[in-house]
C-alpha cells in the first residue's frame, strides 16, 4: 500500500532560532504588534510503500532519526495517512 507522510522538523525548545527571531523583529514593521515565539522549521512530504499505517509510521520515524532530522538539535513529528 502507498501512504502519504508529512514530517515537521523543528529546532528543539531552548535552542536559539535566529530565523524565527529575525521574522519576529520584522513583523511589527508591518503593523503586526504582539507577535511572540516565532519558530521556523521544515515541512517534508513524501510517499512510501508499506504494509500498513503502523509500518509506514515506523519507517518514516526511522528516516527522521537517520537523515531527515538531526536529533542533536531538532525534534520531529510524523503523520501518515
Amino acid at each position: 500500500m502507498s501512504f502519504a507522510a508529512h514530517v515537521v522538523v523543528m529546532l528543539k525548545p531552548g535552542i536559539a532560532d535566529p530565523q524565527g527571531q529575525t521574522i519576529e523583529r520584522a513583523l511589527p514593521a508591518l503593523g503586526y504588534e504582539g507577535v511572540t515565539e516565532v519558530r521556523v522549521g521544515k515541512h517534508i512530504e513524501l510517499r512510501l510503500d508499506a504494509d500498513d499505517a503502523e509500518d509506514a509510521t515506523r519507517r518514516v520515524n526511522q528516516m527522521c532519526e537517520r537523515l531527515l532530522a538531526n536529533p542533536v538539535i531538532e525534534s520531529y513529528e510524523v503523520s501518515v495517512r
Partner: protein
Amino acid sequence: MSVRAGVVVFPGSNCEQDCRRSLHSLGADVDMIWHAEKSLPVVDIVVLPGGFAHGDYLRTGAIARFSPVMEAVTEHARAGGLVIGICNGFQILCEAGLLPGALQKNSGLKFLCKWVQLRVDNPATAFTSRAEPGQVLRIPINHFEGNWYCDPATLERMRDNGQVVLRYVDNPNGALDDAAGIVNEAGNVFGLMPHPERACDVLLGSEDGALIFGSVLDRLRTRSSAAAPA
C-alpha cells in the same frame, strides 16, 4: 619518515586542492580520495575539506555522512587514526557522530568570510602541539553554518576534558563557548570552522594554519619513528 595524508573529495568540495598543497608544502605525501571509495588507501591522517558536499541539501553534511567512504573514515577514527574536518568537513564529522554537537546557522544570519583570531586553549592535542598555551592564531573563516551547539551536559564534560581546543577571540557566529575547533574524547578527531589550509603561506597573509598541520605531522613522524625497528 614520510607521512601520508588522504584528502577526501566529495561532489561539492572546494578546498581539497588547498589542503593538498598545504600538506604537501609541509612535507606530507597526499592522496586524493573520491567519496565513492569504500576503503581508504594506507594513510596516517584523513582530511575532510571544506565546501558544499552534496550541495549541503537538507542540512550541511547530512547527505555527505552517508557517502560510501565515510564508513572507512569512521573505522579509521575508531581505530585511533587521526582525522581533521575543516568547515564543511567539521559539519560532516558532527553529522556522522564522530564529533559531538551540531553546527547551526550563524547567529547573525550572514555568510561570514573574514580573518579571525583564534586562541589555542589546549596545546596538548595532536593538532595544536606546536602552539604555546593561549597563543592567538590568525586564520580565515568562510561559512554560513558555524554556530556550534551541544547540550549543556556534553559541554561540561568537554570543557573538563579540554576538548574545546580553539576559541574565537571575538565570537563571530554565536558558537557555544566561543568554540571554533573541538576534538573528540579520544583526541584523535578534530573539527574546526576556520580554514588553516588558507593560511599556510606568507603570500596569503598568514602562516598560522601551518601550525595546525605541522603539529599533526610532528605527531605522526614521532609515532612512525617510535614504531620503526631500532
